[in-house]
């Protein structure tokens, strides 16, 4: 395999990395703040994909409107997650394991509901942006470039918001120590609510971008949850920037890694990267220092 192929594989990794990066950040927004292993996040990712693909493919809504619609649908789902699932569980003092199992149940149920309404076949959206741009050895569609730009821009916007103003201070304080944050007058339950809604919205946006460039399929639920979790674990628990980098690194490793290996190894590469981090650097790229690997 020649260097041109390597360049194209890297380009694939970079644009897909935008989606993974956004997905990783969206999950980190929820996880860092609430410390809930929110595996049901996959439903938000899938919902975003389905909303955009169905709108574009079946009703002719332009992409510019379908993407915000997916974001809003994700936010609404986040409201439901928080008010109907996590808040009642928290009020009863559920252990993390109970919450995780409940979340896993919601992932399975949520995907089953989507399949019941839309059917088991994946939905492909055709957009007007599929013309190919040739950049030296690289061939990318306008859509892929646009998706990458939008994804990385959304990641950047989230990171900036996290660093600035009342909002950022409250969220970061809750992330660091929710009890102390409550004592100094930050409304922790409101911070949890905002994290869940915003995180779900961003997750749905990532799903919408994935749906546009790939397709919306029932596999998105589990895939999305796993990508998000692996991105955060690589990037480092507690760090939003880490999750952003983690997602991009994961996509790059999975795409460039098969330059010399057969593509059957793609999954093994993803989990191999995770395993190396867990053993060699359990706190991830930018995570908090940990005595041992823990959640």
């Amino acid at each position, binding site marked *: 395999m020649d260097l041109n192929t390597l360049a194209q594989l890297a380009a694939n990794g970079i644009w*897909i990395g935008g989606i993974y990066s956004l997905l990783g950040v969206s999950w980190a927004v929820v996880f860092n703040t609430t410390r809930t292993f929110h595996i049901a996040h996959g439903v938000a990712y899938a919902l975003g994909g389905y909303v955009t693909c169905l709108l574009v493919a079946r009703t002719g809504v332009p992409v510019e409107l379908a993407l915000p619609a997916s974001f809003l649908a994700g936010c609404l789902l986040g409201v439901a997650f928080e008010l109907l699932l996590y808040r009642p569980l928290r009020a009863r003092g559920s252990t993390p394991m109970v919450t995780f199992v409940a979340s896993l149940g919601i992932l399975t149920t949520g995907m089953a509901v989507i399949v019941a309404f839309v059917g088991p076949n994946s939905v492909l959206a055709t957009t007007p942006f599929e013309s190919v741009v040739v950049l030296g050895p690289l061939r990318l569609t306008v859509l892929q470039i646009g998706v990458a730009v939008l994804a990385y821009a959304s990641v950047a916007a989230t990171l900036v918001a996290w660093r600035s103003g009342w909002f950022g201070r409250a969220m970061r304080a809750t992330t660091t120590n929710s009890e102390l944050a409550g004592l100094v007058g930050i409304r922790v339950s409101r911070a949890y609510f905002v994290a869940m809604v915003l995180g779900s919205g961003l997750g749905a946006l990532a799903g919408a971008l*994935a749906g546009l460039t790939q397709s919306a399929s029932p596999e998105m639920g589990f895939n999305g949850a*796993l990508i998000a979790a692996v991105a955060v674990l690589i990037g480092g628990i507690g760090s939003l920037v880490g999750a952003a980098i983690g997602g991009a690194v994961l996509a790059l490793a999975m795409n460039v890694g098969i330059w010399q290996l057969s593509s059957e190894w793609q999954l093994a590469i993803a989990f191999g990267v995770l395993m190396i981090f867990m053993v060699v650097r359990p706190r991830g790229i930018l995570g908090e220092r940990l005595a041992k690997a823990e959640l």
Partner: protein
Amino acid sequence: MTILGLAATAALIAGCGSSSSAGSGGGGSPKSGGEPIHLGVVASLSGAAAPFGKTQVQGAELAAEEWNAKHPDKIELSVQDDQSEAKGGVSAMRKLSEEGPDAIVGPTSTTIGVAIAPIATQEQIPMMSPSVSAPEFVSEGGYTFRNHLTTPQQAAATTEWAVEGGIKSVGMLMNNAADGKAAAETVEEIVEENGGQITGAEFAEPTAVEFQSQLTKLVAGKPEALWVFIIAPEAIALAMKEARQLGFTGRFLTIANVETEEFTETVGSAGEEAVWAVETEPEAPSYAAFVAAYKKKFGAEPEFIAANSYDATMLLAEGITKVGGGSALREWLHKAHYEGVTGPISFDAEGDVTERPLAIRELRGGKFVDAGGK
């Protein structure tokens, strides 16, 4: 780039039970006037595959009825429901092996076929499936047969068509499962036998949602034709679009699953001149008679499984009257040249049907047309 895989690994735990059955695979002597022909039927009558199991049983029932009207040795069917599960298939087989049938028609579904094929061989009961598609259902030395063409066999026909048309280099994007691997081997054999070469082979998880990087590697090998052997038509459409985007200009070879309207809509011009093989409607006059009789009895058009099941029942009954069941029937089936309603039936060394009427089809201007040849 599915990250899932692990969650999709459905462990099929075939219920292993007591091995009390005597292992006598039916008598080895021909029937002589008035002796019943014991045929077991393993079918999915409940669960996910129930619609297919129902037509399988109906095909067998129609065959038994017509046979019994003409012959002194009557067919007796013992129908067992496998509940669309490997576990249910194993219990059905255990029950049948106690009854000691001369032969078995079934099962309906692939996972069950793979689970119970070893039992048929061990108990020495010839078993013929009208629909199981996994290549490993049949094997040399086994007691299993199949009068249905597998997707890898159809892939062979498409590849032969392409090679005869002068294509020398082929890249392959295949389903990372038993059928995809079998198809890849067959394709490689055919291409290399004809002096061509495989420029690359990549395997995609059955749940994969995008193929960018696999296709990047495949397109870099500059093949004249690209095999896209993935199951879901939407995934095939996506792979074809991505391959075109990456600069592939040659011909796509694919499977009959693409013959849907959704496929042509989603693939657009990227799928132009894609070719695949389909089993055609049987031409034998006896097929028309079968369809008429089936409609009269069940009030519905027969599916291919019904026709295959009808043929399997008739063929097994004929063999049993001539040589009996068990290993004698197995020998007889391997040598048989039978004219069924679906066309001529004979089996290769492993027990797969050797020929079926096939047509090579092509996508041209958004329409499915015959590509000519074969």
